């Protein structure tokens, strides 16, 4: 499965270095590691006892730069040529149906941000409590590949990953007709291959596309858009550098906002902001994100229509 190709190669390279491991040890270790990777439950292992680790304290070389990296200026054009203070989202490449094993899948690329999402289900749910009798259950899992950010992350889900998975769940739940899938479970897995900014917004878009590709009934597509407020100006769909630059001037408005929106119903299904902003800036920011979502809508609709046509081509005229 495409999603899990990466962990296996990492495992093999670490095991090759171990000259003393016996064959049974290898099999047991492989089985245990597989269980470790495949589990989508919320067990948190604070330390990884099943893998051979590198030295205890490793640091990224970027900490040893001679002079600190220049913060992007807060005026003037942005690094990639887009405009500030305008709803200028990055052009998006979307494709559905890339993973053959999954019920539905989608891949999205916006600038350098690349993510893919797979949807499995509806499947029978393991736990059954009263709500499950009437409504289906949505499980979301969002993971970052360790090489996706400029600092190496770990395979163990940190609290940031769990937080993003929870927000993804909150954004998608209002859109899915869960009452049509009682006693079932729909699993959504998002994998971030490269993080170049505004990753949650694109994950929401990608996940709702994958759900549509899987044929899950929904009220509407969910689109995500994020902005980064820097002083008096804002940038829509920020890149990684724009998101993480601490403003050199400690001005009043500094922060980021992500909004998940259902365009045809005009409802906000998810909202998250941090930093510090005045209430007027926040409200203006929400309006900007909604505009950004409307800009993205025709592209997503077109990609979905193309995927449907590819899967079931219309009958020829003759």
């Amino acid at each position, binding site marked *: 499965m495409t999603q899990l190709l990466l962990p296996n190669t990492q495992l093999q390279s670490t095991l090759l270095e171990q000259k003393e491991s016996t064959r049974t040890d290898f099999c047991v270790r492989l089985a245990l590691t597989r269980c470790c990777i495949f589990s989508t439950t919320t067990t948190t292992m604070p330390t990884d006892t099943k893998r051979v680790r590198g030295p205890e304290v490793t640091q990224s070389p970027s900490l040893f730069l001679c002079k600190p990296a220049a913060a992007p200026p807060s005026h003037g054009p942005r690094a990639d040529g887009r405009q500030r203070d305008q709803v200028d989202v990055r052009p998006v490449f979307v494709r559905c149906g890339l993973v053959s094993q999954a019920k539905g899948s989608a891949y999205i690329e916006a600038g350098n941000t690349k993510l893919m999402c797979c949807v499995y289900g509806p499947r029978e749910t393991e736990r059954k409590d009263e709500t499950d009798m009437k409504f289906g259950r949505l499980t979301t899992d969002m993971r970052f590949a360790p090489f996706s950010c400029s600092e190496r992350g770990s395979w163990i889900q940190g609290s940031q990953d769990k937080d993003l998975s929870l927000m993804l769940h909150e954004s998608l739940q*209002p859109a899915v007709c869960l009452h049509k899938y009682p006693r079932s479970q729909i699993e959504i897995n998002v994998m971030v291959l490269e993080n170049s900014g505004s990753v949650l917004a694109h994950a929401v878009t990608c996940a709702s596309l994958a759900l549509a590709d899987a044929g899950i009934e929904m009220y509407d597509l969910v689109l995500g858009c994020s902005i980064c407020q820097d002083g008096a100006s804002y940038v829509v769909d920020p890149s990684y550098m724009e998101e993480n630059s601490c403003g050199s001037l400690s001005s009043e408005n500094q922060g980021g906002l992500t909004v998940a929106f259902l365009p045809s119903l005009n409802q906000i299904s998810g*909202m998250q*902001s941090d930093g510090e902003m005045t209430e007027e800036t926040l409200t203006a920011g929400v309006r900007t994100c909604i505009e950004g979502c409307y800009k993205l809508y025709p592209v997503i609709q077109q990609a979905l229509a193309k995927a449907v046509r590819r899967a079931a081509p219309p009958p020829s005229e003759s």
Partner: protein
Amino acid sequence: MATVQVSEAEKVYILHGIRDDLRVDGRGCEDYRHMEIETDVVSNTDGSAKITLGHTAVLVGVKAEIGKPRPLVPNEGYLEFFVDCSANATPEFEGRGGEELGTELSNTLYKVFNNKHSVDLKSLSISAGEHCWVLYVDVLLLQCDGNLYDAISIAIKAALFNTKIPRVHISSDDEGGKEIELSDDPYDCMRLDVENVPCIVTLCKVGHRHVVDATLQEKACSVASLIISVTHKGTVTCTRKVGGGSLDPESIYEMTEAGKRVGKALHAPLMKLLQQEESLGTKRQKVGFLG
């Protein structure tokens, strides 16, 4: 969060009441329940506070330890949050049940404090790049009756106000290495400036109106809530929509405005109360956990 079963008839009753600005216990839509705050309840901590908001009880303990600063910000200390949903609160929290809620609460707290002005992190630095104060803020949920975010944020503000960090001075020893010495006087400590610490306001959307400080029954009637964290100046440090429903953009604008208004009005009486309690000094009657 702990849930209660609410029948359809009761839901309609609550909905109609809120539509007319009258809640089940007689409050208006933007009124808080009776709140009791007490600081310095646990003597082993550097700062502690206990808050009771209606039937919700939260205990916060702050411990200051010396650690290594984060590599990217060598001249600042930091705060670490942890929320423990104790099984005392409700049987749903037994074992790992409360873990999900606990992680959600602590992640929101990290976001709320993720800005330059809430806590002056530079004052927590001892020597740049080597030592700094790390404040471990541990929150314990004792009783759960709705509106956890608000109670936790107020308790954290009170506990940080109460925190006394011992003063240290660096001296170089014979080999040229640095040694940290704690001052002998136990009352020689540094206090934190909590003016800019934000408070969280949770607004639940019930029907077409929103309510502040919802009880569990009111929460069961709402589909979505908005959490907004406001400082005393009115700046918003974190917002988040929780719940499985969606909100109209107009409701979001209304709720942000109401949240800012309510949050801003919360800070002045709170600071006055904390300073009053502090000024009572040793003559203060300690209520503790049995009051």
